[in-house]
């Protein structure tokens, strides 16, 4: 590793550790540890949400996909962005009003029971871990490719950092690491986009012409159809992307970190501006890669295209810019995995330890201790998993996370908030059927069953790589059938009305206040 790279990495690590040290002194209550006491402003939280959401797959993967597949690569970004409308319209404010620290709190505000909380905690825990492992594995490969550091050391460094942030700094440190990441990522991407344009003499038609000559697709680079040949697959992916965010626990728990629904909306609106602007810039970087570096050179170094942004940086700015972009990629990964650790920690220590094991009677100190130990355990276990999975392709887990979230958490959240007849049995069956359907369909799909190098070397039973179009309706159907086949909830009409008014307006009755 040369000195420039080393200095950039040390700078990032020192800055984030200073944030953690500062945050550690402010994380001495459960309220501060889990939700930063709701002290963030809407704009700060919007930056943190963007930092939590834009993973390495977005930064590196989408630039690479655009460089390789042209138009189709850009379509991923659209699904990710529009999903925030679903969050804003349907779940954001009710989640903020009904929950305290976790999604379990939200659902249990209508169906208070240990069973319900346990199933929600398992769902949140699974989604967070499923998403964290590919991020850690990708970080190992990325740092090895960029900096020539051993895979195990890379994973240990990132795993260790994310654990330190959460164990000592809780949500305060996680939020500020994510905010810093967003600032660094946006400014770095903007800088790189400007350099691309300056290399093209600020002439967009010239850039587009160069892209056509730089890609083997030629004129057809700008036409759709180079990645999504199967229309059903394409529609299924778009469905999972647009509904998935509204079921992602690590994004939804960020809605507790602001003080009211005005700030919740501001958070989401700010994040859509940041994420939308970011995706426009990734398009410029994707086009710039083809125009300045050329398709053949990119594919010769990395056939997946994931190194498109760093290679572009090296082409236009030499080692210094490459070091800067690598540091951005590193910050991107640690910020996302820290968000996932705190989400899994909340599910385990708040829902399972405090509410189920201790029946809600553990002291503040016990809860805090449990949360820190849980974060340590989760950090350790997921790092160990990532170390063992070096030789196995786990990238499909990223899209699977969206499918699981859209098929389990999303239906249950929506129906709990809006359907009067919904019952606890329906919620449990909806969660279980959505979770199982997504897992089974992915297991039977070409990610796992593939005669060409799959885990199971035979033809897939389901031809879809993204089975959301089947699993999401199964999640809803499970919830519906569970409800109509179970006896009516003991909750009276008046009780539901009070719950509904609370979820929509925040008005609580006197009995709820007392």
């Amino acid at each position, binding site marked *: 590793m040369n000195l420039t790279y080393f200095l950039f990495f040390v700078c990032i690590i020192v800055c984030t550790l200073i944030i953690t040290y500062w945050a550690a002194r402010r994380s001495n209550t459960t309220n501060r540890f889990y939700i930063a006491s709701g002290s963030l402003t809407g704009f700060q939280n919007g930056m943190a949400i963007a930092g939590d959401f834009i993973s390495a797959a977005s930064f590196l993967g989408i630039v690479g996909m655009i460089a390789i597949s042209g138009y189709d690569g850009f379509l991923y970004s659209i699904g990710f962005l529009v999903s925030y409308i679903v969050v804003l319209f349907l779940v954001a404010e009710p989640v903020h009003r009904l929950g305290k620290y976790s999604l379990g709190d939200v659902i249990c505000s209508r169906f208070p029971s240990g069973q319900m909380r346990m199933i929600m905690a398992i769902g949140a825990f699974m989604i967070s871990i499923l998403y964290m492992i590919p991020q850690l594995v990708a970080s190992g490969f990325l740092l090895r490719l960029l900096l020539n550091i051993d895979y195990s050391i890379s994973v240990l460094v990132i795993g260790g950092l994310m654990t330190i942030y959460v164990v000592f700094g809780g949500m305060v440190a996680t939020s500020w690491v994510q905010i810093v990441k967003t600032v660094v990522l946006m400014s770095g991407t903007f800088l790189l986009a400007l350099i691309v344009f300056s290399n093209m003499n600020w002439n967009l038609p010239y850039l587009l012409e160069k892209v056509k000559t730089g890609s083997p697709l030629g004129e057809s680079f700008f036409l759709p*159809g180079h990645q999504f040949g199967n*229309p059903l697959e394409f529609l299924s992916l*778009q469905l999972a992307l*647009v509904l998935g965010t509204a079921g992602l626990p690590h994004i939804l728990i960020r809605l507790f970190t602001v003080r009211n629904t005005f700030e919740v909306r501001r958070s989401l609106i700010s994040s*859509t501006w940041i994420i939308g602007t970011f995706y426009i810039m990734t398009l410029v970087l994707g086009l710039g890669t083809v125009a300045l570096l050329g398709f053949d050179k990119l594919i010769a170094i990395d056939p997946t295209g994931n190194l498109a942004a760093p290679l572009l940086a090296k082409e236009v700015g030499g080692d210094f810019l490459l070091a800067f972009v690598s540091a951005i990629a590193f910050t991107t990964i640690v910020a996302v995995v820290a968000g996932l650790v705190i989400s899994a920690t909340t599910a385990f220590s708040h829902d399972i330890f405090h509410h189920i094991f201790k029946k809600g009677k553990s002291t503040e100190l016990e809860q805090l201790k449990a949360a820190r130990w849980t974060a340590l355990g989760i950090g350790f276990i997921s790092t160990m998993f990532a170390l063992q999975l070096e030789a196995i392709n786990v990238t499909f887990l990223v899209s699977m996370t969206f499918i699981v979230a859209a098929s389990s958490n999303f239906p249950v959240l929506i129906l709990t908030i809006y359907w009067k007849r919904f019952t606890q049995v329906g919620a449990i069956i909806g969660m279980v059927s959505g979770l199982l359907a997504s897992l089974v369909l992915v297991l039977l799909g070409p990610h796992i069953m593939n005669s060409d190098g799959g885990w199971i070397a035979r033809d897939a039973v389901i031809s879809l790589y993204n089975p959301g179009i089947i699993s999401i309706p199964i999640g809803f159907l499970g919830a519906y059938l569970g409800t109509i086949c179970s006896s009516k909830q003991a909750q009276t009409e008046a009780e539901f009305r009070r719950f509904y*008014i609370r979820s929509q307006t925040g008005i609580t009755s006197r009995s709820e206040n007392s």
Partner: protein
Amino acid sequence: MEERVLALIRERKKMLIPTLMLVFLFYFMLPLSLTLLPDLMNRTSFIPGLTWAWVYAFMQIPMTWLVGWGYHVNAKKLEEKINGIKREELK
């Protein structure tokens, strides 16, 4: 009070559901039109050098921003009305 609040929620729903349906329609029409109307989508649009497929994909970004902003404005008005009801109730 409860009835007045419920009436406000119903009023909001009347705006919210059609808007969300339009957002879904606009969003899913992109993959559907790329599949069903490839010739039309690959034709050059009113912007020289850009096909309708690109214009449609780009339009999803300002659509998200505009719809989000519209929702925020609407939700603010609703919150003011609800706070008014709360104040009246406390008198």
